[in-house]
């Protein structure tokens, strides 16, 4: 259990305390990753099933390393090689996997709400590894962890999220997490990629990149999804890059000293981020990858470690 949460599906449901519980535990988990022997026996005899209906390398590997570092058994299940191609429904697939008695199901799906639907039909803990344009909670938590680790606190800090906000589950999770930890959020991107009424979530909306990143303590650059390019939302990558991409010159002129640059990956180099910025001193992109393992260890430990039913007994 993470506080009252039996699952980790949406940071919208998480309280400040529940988010902090994961982040604080992840500090200890990160220490485990630095040891000569990177393995602890906490989840020995537990099993984690990665159920991925959408392509992913980073997130799936990250959950797999997290599970294995905690000594859990980890099974990877991808839809391309499964019965989904034979017409099995999501719930049937999940129920069949559950019959093998895993302790945690990690699900990525192209449809928002899929992890919640599965959680309602299975008994084990469910962790979302990203669902449609809904949320990507572990990414939101690792973004918080990375910025907090570098800046010491999120209280009073300003964060800019730049890119295709309306299709980004990362943006949505960040937007639900950072303000709970005391940070202000500015959103920036093409007006066609900004959900209407998003200010109601307590952020400010900008179309001008300079206005969004100037004075910010951290900037999260979102990936522009290739499939969106050429459709009416943005005419071409050159225009996008010119108006909303971050290059060395803009970073030097506009970012305040010590400001961090984050990106959930994979980067489109030269589109939303120039290589000089992605590999530059402000970039914490590789920290994010390492911290992702620690944060996912914390999530798995809290959800698989205890059994709610046994706690009541």
């Amino acid at each position: 259990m993470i506080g009252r949460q039996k699952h980790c599906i949406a940071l919208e449901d998480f309280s400040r305390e529940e988010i902090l519980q994961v982040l604080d535990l992840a500090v200890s988990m990160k220490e485990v990753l630095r040891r000569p022997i990177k393995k602890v026996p906490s989840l020995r005899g537990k099993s984690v099933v990665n159920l991925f209906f959408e392509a992913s390398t980073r997130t799936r590997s990250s959950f797999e390393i997290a599970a294995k570092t905690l000594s859990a058994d980890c099974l990877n299940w991808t839809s391309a090689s499964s019965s989904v191609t034979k017409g099995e429904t999501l719930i049937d697939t999940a129920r069949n996997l559950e019959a093998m008695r895993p302790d945690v199901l990690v699900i990525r799906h192209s449809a928002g709400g899929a992890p919640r639907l599965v959680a309602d039909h299975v008994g084990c803990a469910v962790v979302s590894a990203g669902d449609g344009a809904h949320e990507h909670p572990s990414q939101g938590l690792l973004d918080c962890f990375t910025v907090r680790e570098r800046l010491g606190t999120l209280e009073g800090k300003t964060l800019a999220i730049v890119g295709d906000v309306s299709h980004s589950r990362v943006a949505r999770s960040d937007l639900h997490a950072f303000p709970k930890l005391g940070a202000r959020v500015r959103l920036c991107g093409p007006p066609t990629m900004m959900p209407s009424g998003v200010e109601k979530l307590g952020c400010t909306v900008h179309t001008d990149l300079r206005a969004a990143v100037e004075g910010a303590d951290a900037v999260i650059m979102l990936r522009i999804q290739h499939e969106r390019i050429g459709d009416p939302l943005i005419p071409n990558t050159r225009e996008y890059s010119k108006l909303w991409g971050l290059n060395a010159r803009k970073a030097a002129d506009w970012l305040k000293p010590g400001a961090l640059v984050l990106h959930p990956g994979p980067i489109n180099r030269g589109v939303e981020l120039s290589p000089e910025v992605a590999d530059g001193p402000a970039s914490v992109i590789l920290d994010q990858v390492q911290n992702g393992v620690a944060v996912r260890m914390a999530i798995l430990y809290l959800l698989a470690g205890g059994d709610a039913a046994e706690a009541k007994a």
Partner: protein
Amino acid sequence: MDAEQIERAVGRLAQEIADRARAAGAADALAIVGIRRGGVHLAARLRLALTRLLGHEPPVGTLDIALYRDDLSARGVAPVVGPTDIRFPVQGKTIVLVDDVLYTGRTVRAALDELVDFGRPRRVWLAVLVDRGGHELPIAADFAGAHLQVADGQDVQVRLHEDGQGADVVLTTGRVP
């Protein structure tokens, strides 16, 4: 035990550890590791005393055994995990594992498992302030400040002033069944 008795016990523990370390030719390779949370302050005190006795400061570290517990599933709620902090190479060292109370021995079992994940020590000694009996594993203290006869339902609490709870004291609480 009151503050004065605890101080004498810690001094005696340090003397015994120093003597044994010299006899084993391990005085230069000694390191102290406190088990969180009860062993941490004791480890710091032993380090201070051993620095005087040995003429050099042995390295000190901290182990948090939460990730190595054997009762994770049975506890319901996952235990709080604190920091483990060992910044010296464990390889070849003579490690003095320090805890406040030795009871079932399960904490020490977990601590040994965790310790060897940092390397292969030359040897490990166990030093505790109080050995209260009731061991459930073949684990014994190499150095004990005191041996107490305490019934199973009772709890032995070591309170040290570093915790901000007043003067040092060892209390036995709970009813005898």
